[in-house]
């Protein structure tokens, strides 16, 4: 009987963690056929610079009357004041979100989740491998690293898309190829435009061009469709990068983002507070993490 009164009398007044703040959509435009780019800032402009986050974290977004869902942030905390999102139209929530126009408001609370361990990644070589919608969280990390370039070693960015038209932030990445302080390798599965000047082939073909890497000193961040993990992880592990230095971010159904609603539970972990960034080592021994069962199809 160590404690007389536990939580009963330990209730300081605090903020409601479920309280969405109102944000305004500043820009909205299509990136590809079914993916939109959104840029938002708090309605209360004084709040804009107070919103701090880490690449890889997510927020809970509310569309009034429709509901709430988690979305990862695609912009970098090194460019504060605005949040950017890269969102695919998938269901009822995103349908209502896509119907909103610039200057209309939505609710945002967060940030949540662990995010990428950016401080521990400092001084390391960084390899980022993205495919499809996996670029959404990886762009945040990449921009952060580029904005803090001197804190990191060699940076390699590998990106695969189905077609040039499907490549999210295509112009942005093509411009990155001009920089001499990172290697930006882009590929498309097939070129239906005839205008693509870069590599053609799945993302793993880019590994051939990698050359020697300092594997033990490299942190890899991988995000993409499940089929990509299946092949990419094999390559990354073969490079000799330790499994706990291979990071990935997961998607789950979430209703709260703060470890209460239970939906994102995987064994003893909650994706929302223990993730969404996990290491390949976690994934290997947590059976349900990317579901090595026959049912699991999408992680992004």
């Amino acid at each position: 009987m160590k404690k007389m009164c536990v939580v009963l009398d330990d209730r300081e007044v605090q903020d409601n963690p479920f309280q969405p703040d109102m944000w305004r959509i500043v820009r909205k435009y299509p990136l590809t056929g079914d993916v939109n780019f959104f840029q938002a800032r708090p309605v209360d402009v004084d709040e804009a610079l107070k919103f701090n986050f880490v690449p890889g974290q997510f927020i809970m977004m509310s569309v009034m009357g429709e509901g709430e869902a988690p979305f990862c942030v695609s912009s970098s905390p090194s460019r504060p004041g605005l949040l950017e999102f890269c969102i695919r139209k998938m269901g009822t929530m995103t349908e209502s979100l896509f119907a909103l126009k610039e200057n209309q408001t939505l609710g945002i609370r967060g940030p949540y989740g662990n995010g990428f361990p950016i401080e521990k990644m400092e001084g390391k070589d960084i390899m980022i491998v993205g495919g499809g919608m996996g670029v959404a969280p990886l762009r945040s990390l990449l921009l952060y690293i580029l904005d803090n370039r001197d804190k990191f070693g060699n940076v390699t960015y590998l990106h695969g898309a189905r077609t040039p038209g499907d490549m999210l932030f295509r112009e942005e990445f093509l411009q990155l190829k001009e920089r001499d302080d990172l290697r930006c390798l882009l590929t498309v599965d097939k070129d239906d435009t005839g205008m693509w000047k870069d590599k053609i082939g799945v993302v793993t073909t880019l590994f051939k061009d990698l050359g020697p890497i300092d594997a033990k000193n490299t942190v890899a961040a991988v995000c993409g469709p499940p089929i990509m993990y299946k092949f990419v992880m094999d390559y990354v592990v073969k490079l000799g990068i330790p499994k706990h230095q291979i990071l990935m971010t997961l998607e789950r159904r979430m209703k709260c983002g703060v470890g209460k609603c239970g939906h994102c539970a995987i064994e003893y972990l909650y994706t929302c507070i223990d993730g969404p960034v996990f290491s390949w080592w976690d994934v290997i021994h947590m059976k349900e993490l990317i579901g090595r069962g026959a049912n699991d199809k999408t992680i992004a």
Partner: protein
Amino acid sequence: MMILKMKKEDLPAFLDSVKEWGELWGPVKKGEKVTYAKVDALSQMDLKATRTIIPPKKFLYPQRFTMFDFDQDGYVERKGDVPKRILFGIHPCDIHGILIMDKLFLENYKDPYYAERREKTLILGHSCIPDDKCMCIATNTDFIAEGFDLFFTDLKMFYLVWVGSTKGHDLVRMRPDLFSRDLDKNDILNYTEYRKWKTAQFKSNVDFTGMPDVFELGYNSPVWDQLGDKCLSCGQCTMVCPTCNCYNQVDEVELGSLEGTRDRFWDSCMFREYSLVAGGHNFRDKRADRLRLWYTHKLQAYIGEFGKPACVGCGRCVATCPVDINVVTVSTALKEQEVGK
């Protein structure tokens, strides 16, 4: 902790007095079973009853309630429509259940809705006599040392009353004439005798030791599919479980406007929709996967994290599941690699 003594015949008068603090609720007969209901006096309560249909979590975390009202300007927290309640007759297992809920809702992003209700609800525990479905002895939840405001242990002529909080003490102070601190040798002997007697009453011999390893070993066991074939996906187990906290939420609007409410309601990991993400992918499409999640959470994952199971041995799943899937049958099936009849 302060332990007081009260004559049994003084309990009605005490409960009558504490009504000044808030509504009095206690276990009341409903058909063959019992539920917590609002009462005027002790005489309406059924203190012999073992378990209520759903646990007292409904007071701290109602089946469905409004979290926010919203209009164009934003979301406004809905607060303040929670009555002050005194729950009498809560058993040790259910208080253990509340402690698990406390951990979830009050630590790390404190849930203000739960906190408000917890604050406005006093827990007056009561000792109990186990029936054939009770297995709190296997989960080490047959006695309770915290989480209540007052706890009454029935020693035939007297109650020994544990005072667990300042609010519990305030209730005592409303009728100091009914309590005494005169505990003598006989009280101690009676109490030890009572503990021995209670322990001897258990009929269930379920044993959860080693369950985390059995779950790990049995992850791919065909037992899960067999259980999945039997499961009705009705979700009753999760509704009656004192440690099930999962919820869903929905926005509702007023007709002809974009003003409305954000409501929260009990959800269940037994439902197909539970792990469905936008785009149609379901992380747990099979019933077997969903059952495995639930039982893994209760008897493996929670033990790994907190050193004790997220099962408090109340026996509600045993007394509720129409197809006999419960902590006893599942743990036995996994250990014996056979689903019992």
